[in-house]
């Protein structure tokens, strides 16, 4: 069938296909940027909610990062707060699966996580950029120890199944060689006076010197096998001590091979705003944040509560819910105001008397597919055999990412890595499989990069976000058009109801979006409550 790029330029079509297939990671980040993902957090420091009217109450639906943030701040401001949460735990997508945990997905498959003690996988968010100031604030407040998250590991791999005989290449080599070749070409163009029209003679001198420095070029401005290039891409034989000390330089990959492989697309993976050093992870798993919030809020959270109806009137909001552990007669909670953080695919199915514009916005946002798999191995072979300590390998295989644990380095015993982090079409296909099939595929594909997999694999879990009972999808996937048409309607307070969550933010898919949208929404709810408190 027609592939659809229109004019039929084969090379362009191939290029697009290659970018789509082999360059998934970078392409995704770029696509995310245009979706608003790379926006700077608007977090302005601790929120000020002074002057809460005496006895005013807020009912919060959902104990994910948005609901927990709101509950914490509103409680501290003097509001009477109650939270209804579908799960038996706090956190929502802030979630860690550890040995002994059981998880039942939509469709009924139950997975028993059999990881060893202290080993875990974060099925949802796994990293916190330093500039997600809201998340940084609350982890500090809750005294959550943070560990570095290695977004970029120069010794991890970039892998294209159709290039270099399927052999993964070290990030360090691809980056150094791509950069070196580009520097050489640019130096050549400069010296052939091709840049005379755009760069002054004086600047050309400086440009040449900078290219030599940037690309590790030799005295002739060539990128060749040398101490200089090996100092970037690594040596054939590393410098040592004693009689065996003399290093042997390595040979760069040819420019054509880098371009043809598509691996150049991975070079900028750590350059996007959200991926720039420093990034962090909570020690013990991302879920530590939700757990700490849950402990802090204690009895304010009513767990196992499935919301079935949301109804507002002149004086307040009534929410009907069912206790999913002990289903009986529906129960009702009531408050002056309601902050609803329920993910949109679920909220769209709950009767709620809000205006048509908010209703339309709630139904307008499809949720992105994503899957993650955690695999336990008998030993940390990626460290022992391949010297990969943390960080991420990127591949064009359906598993897309392999994430190595950023903690517990060189510890004996077993290890758990993220065997797959997949989005887009392939995530849909993984979702359509049973959990054992997913794990089997992840092991099978991963063994093309790490042949140790089959020998060392012990057990695994695979979470497909469209089958997660409490979200039915990974995150709200806005487009430019849907944002223009619906975003403000989604965020406007409707009577006594306001919405919050990553879906009500421009930092979609990130916990920071949930936190900042919650603070924004409760700030506006507070203004209304104060105004009404004064007029009453």
């Amino acid at each position, binding site marked *: 069938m027609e592939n659809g790029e229109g004019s039929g330029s084969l090379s362009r079509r191939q290029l697009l*296909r290659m970018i789509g297939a082999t360059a998934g990671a970078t392409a995704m980040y770029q696509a995310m940027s245009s979706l608003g993902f790379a926006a700077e957090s608007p977090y302005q420091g601790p929120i000020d909610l002074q002057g809460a009217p005496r006895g005013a109450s807020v009912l919060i639906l959902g104990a994910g990062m948005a609901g927990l943030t709101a509950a914490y701040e509103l409680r501290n401001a003097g509001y009477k707060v109650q939270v209804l949460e579908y799960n038996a735990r706090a956190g929502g997508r802030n979630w860690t699966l550890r040995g002994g945990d059981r998880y039942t997905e939509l469709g009924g498959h*139950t997975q028993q996580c059999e990881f060893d003690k202290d080993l875990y996988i974060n099925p949802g968010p796994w990293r916190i950029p330093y500039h997600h100031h809201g998340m940084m604030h609350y982890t500090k407040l809750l005294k959550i120890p943070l560990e570095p998250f290695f977004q970029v590991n120069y010794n991890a791999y970039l892998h294209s199944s159709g290039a270099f005989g399927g052999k993964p290449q070290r990030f360090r080599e691809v980056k150094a060689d791509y950069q070196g070749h580009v520097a050489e070409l640019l130096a050549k163009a400069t010296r052939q006076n091709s840049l005379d029209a755009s760069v002054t003679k004086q600047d050309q001198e400086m440009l040449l010197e900078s290219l030599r420095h940037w690309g590790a070029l030799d005295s002739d401005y060539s990128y060749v096998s040398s101490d200089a290039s090996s100092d970037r891409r690594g040596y054939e034989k590393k410098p040592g001590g004693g009689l065996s000390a003399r290093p042997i330089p390595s040979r760069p990959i040819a420019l054509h091979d880098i371009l043809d492989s598509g691996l150049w697309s991975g070079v900028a993976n750590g350059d996007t705003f959200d991926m720039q050093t420093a990034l962090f992870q909570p020690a013990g798993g991302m879920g530590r944040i939700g757990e700490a919030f849950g402990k802090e809020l204690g009895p304010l959270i009513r767990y196992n509560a499935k919301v079935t109806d949301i109804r507002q009137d002149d004086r307040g909001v009534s929410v009907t819910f069912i206790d999913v552990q002990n289903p009986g007669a529906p129960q009702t909670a009531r408050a002056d105001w309601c902050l609803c953080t329920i993910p949109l695919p679920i909220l769209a199915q709950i009767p709620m008397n809000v205006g048509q514009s908010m209703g339309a916005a709630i*139904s307008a946002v499809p949720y992105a597919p994503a899957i993650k798999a955690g695999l336990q191995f008998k030993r940390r072979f990626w460290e022992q055999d391949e010297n990969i300590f943390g960080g991420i390998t990127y591949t064009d295989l359906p598993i897309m990412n392999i994430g190595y644990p950023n903690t517990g380095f060189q510890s004996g015993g077993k290890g758990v890595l993220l065997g797959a982090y997949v989005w887009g079409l392939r995530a*849909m296909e993984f979702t359509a499989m049973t959990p054992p*099939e997913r794990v089997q595929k992840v092991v099978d594909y991963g063994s093309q990069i790490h042949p140790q997999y089959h020998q060392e694999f012990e057990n695994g879990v695979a979470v*497909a976000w469209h089958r997660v*009972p409490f979200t039915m999808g990974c995150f709200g996937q806005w*487009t430019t058009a849907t944002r223009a048409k619906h975003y403000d309607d989604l965020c406007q307070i409707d009577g006594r109801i306001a919405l919050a969550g990553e879906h009500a933010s421009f930092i979609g898919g990130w916990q920071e979006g949930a936190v900042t949208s919650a603070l924004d929404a409760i700030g506006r709810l507070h203004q209304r409550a104060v105004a009404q408190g004064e007029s009453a």
Partner: protein
Amino acid sequence: MRSVALGAALLLLMLGAYADSPMFTSRATIGSLNGEQIYEHICQGCHMPGGQGAVGAGSYPKLAANKKLASWAYVALTVLDGRNGMPPFGYPAGHGMNAGPPHLSDAQIADVVNYVRSHFGNAYKADVTPEKIQALPHPAAELMGPQ
């Protein structure tokens, strides 16, 4: 509830057992999938094998013996434009959203609509044509991300 406990031995068994399972498709090759294959690769992720649907905090509609399927246009518009959290599959080819839902052709959408309306205990005539799909409103291209 099915319990999933994966040991290495079990996994090795399964590797044999699933050796013939269909490989992943891609944006380049998805165009060759028919209605049944599209259902198995994509739709059943949410609507479940056999169109059984699922219930959690919300629910995925059961397609098995579902009276709403009497309207072919309802089903077709849902696939084309999405509904609630469901993504739209009617974006033009090459819509540029690498992270977005894949493009399905009018012929494929007709085929998958016919498939769900004639399986899972539904016995509607499989008479939806690509022309009928073409006549329905499609979502506009979303030109974003790398082109």
